[in-house]
């Protein structure tokens, strides 16, 4: 079971036009890709090279499938898919590719991740 710290800090909130206490997860550190691969390889007793090849192949799979309009199911991780943001228009003549303002890869966590999140112990700090 995980444990996280949520810190409340005062900051300006435009909607209320005043300073209010906002909560955010305290990030202890950023685990870099190399560190993660080394840790995973050590704990699973598999060569680091195999893990690196795996991450490259998965990136390739995502770029081929997701960037061609498919969703990709990465098992215990969840589902990756393309997400877009575009302006709405009133008639069909106004529809053009310039309306698309943002294109990104979205991620929907698996049920296993959601379950793990639900079991997290939260500590509050101000």
């Amino acid at each position, binding site marked *: 079971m995980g444990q996280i710290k949520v810190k409340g800090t005062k900051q300006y909130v435009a909607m209320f036009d005043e300073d209010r*206490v906002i909560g955010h997860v305290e990030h202890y550190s950023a685990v870099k890709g190399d560190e993660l691969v080394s840790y995973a390889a050590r704990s699973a007793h598999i060569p680091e090279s*195999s893990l690196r090849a795996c991450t490259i192949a998965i990136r390739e799979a995502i770029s*081929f499938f997701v960037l061609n309009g498919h969703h990709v199911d990465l098992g215990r*991780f969840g589902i990756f898919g393309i997400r*877009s943001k575009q302006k709405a228009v009133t008639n069909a003549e106004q529809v053009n590719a310039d309306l698309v303002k943002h294109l990104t890869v979205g991620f929907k966590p698996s049920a296993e991740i959601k379950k*793990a999140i639900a079991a997290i112990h939260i500590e509050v700090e101000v």
Partner: protein
Amino acid sequence: MEFTVYSLGFTIMGKGKININFKKCRVAYSDTEMLVGRAVRYSTIPYSSIISYAAQAASVPESNIEISMEALFDALNYFVMNGHSVQIPHLGTFYLKVRVKSTTTKEEFVANFSKNLRQVSIGFLPDPELKAMIASTAINTLTDGQEGDVISGAG
């Protein structure tokens, strides 16, 4: 550049192309019917196909890819659920985020935290490499399934 995915039996272009379909629907904020776009989803590629594909692409046995995926997931799960942000090489960074109702005082924030907590979720930030690929993806707009404007690169 063209790649053949043998296990799936079809060919995909190296550079992506996304179709955005504009359909009429009611937009609440303007209280009118407008054409709203949505990226067309063709299918969901199952996990087993991704494993086969990755094994062929990296020329390693499928079992190695599966073990690697499990190991990566366990490591990610351990770090993310304990408040660290985690980068998966070539893919992106995962982190935890919370949505809590704001309060006027710190005392109120602590006292009403469980009541004000709306959601704890996992966020994903794509890697710069992946972002560059997204930027070079061609966009094709459709209006109720009919071909429209095409631009190269999402910007």
